[in-house]
């Protein structure tokens, strides 16, 4: 988690690949973790417009 250079990112992706995706018996977890991370990332990115849609005023 130390370098966010493209090379480091590619290395981290390759690690993730080797651990969860490119195995003999593939499972859904390899793909679902990527989708969950993508969903989380999008939510964080569009948090600003969600702030105004809160149903309650005080929380």
């Amino acid at each position: 988690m130390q370098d966010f250079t493209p090379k480091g990112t590619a290395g981290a992706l390759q690690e993730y690949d080797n651990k969860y995706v490119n195995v003999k018996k593939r499972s859904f977890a390899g793909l679902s973790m990527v989708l969950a991370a993508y969903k989380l990332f999008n939510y964080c990115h569009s948090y600003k417009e969600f702030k105004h849609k809160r149903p309650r005023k005080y929380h």
Partner: protein
Amino acid sequence: MSANVENSAVAPGLESVTPSLKNAALLCPGALQAARILHTGQPSLAPVPPLPEHGRKVRFGLIPEEFFQFLYPKTGVTGPYVLGTGLILYLLSKEIYVITPETFSAISTIVLLVYVVKNYGASVGEFADKLNEQKIAQLEEVKQASIKQIQMLLIWRSHSRHWNNIAMALEVTYRERLHRVYREVKNCLDYHISVQNMMCQKEQEHMINWEKETIASCIADLKLLAKKAQAQPVL
């Protein structure tokens, strides 16, 4: 007779075998292992380790097992679950996670997905595994065929070396015999030449002797005649 067994025919044979594996589509895991083993020209890529059987364990399909192991010494077994529940409640109550219509669509999607994966995941996995196995078996066949081909080429090459030696030995004996024949013929011709020379010499000597004799006898006759002629006028 010079039988040159060309060994350069082996190199083109080898060249035609390896590209077929290089171009094989690496579409399934394990294909890389099957294809890499024959490439000996790249020493940095050591024998690739075999693929792991299962991926790392993941709970709820989202959180890797390592997270649970990471929290186990401090909080025991229920630690991560309590953490998860507390986190979700905190996000909901402080409305950091806002409940919108999209939340409901997301919930229904996730429920459907979980249902499908739980029920049909195993059969789909088996089907995919079968496809994988077929591809790997195909590549294994190609690999075995090319290994056999290369082995036969190696055997042929060793035999051709053997034949090379035999051919060279045969040629050496042939040349030896040729040389001997040449020498014998030369001896025969030399003998004839020396015989002729000797005959000439002998004839010459004989001629000279004969001439000497005739001249001597002529001189003797002449002497006799001269004596007779001298004796007659006296009478």
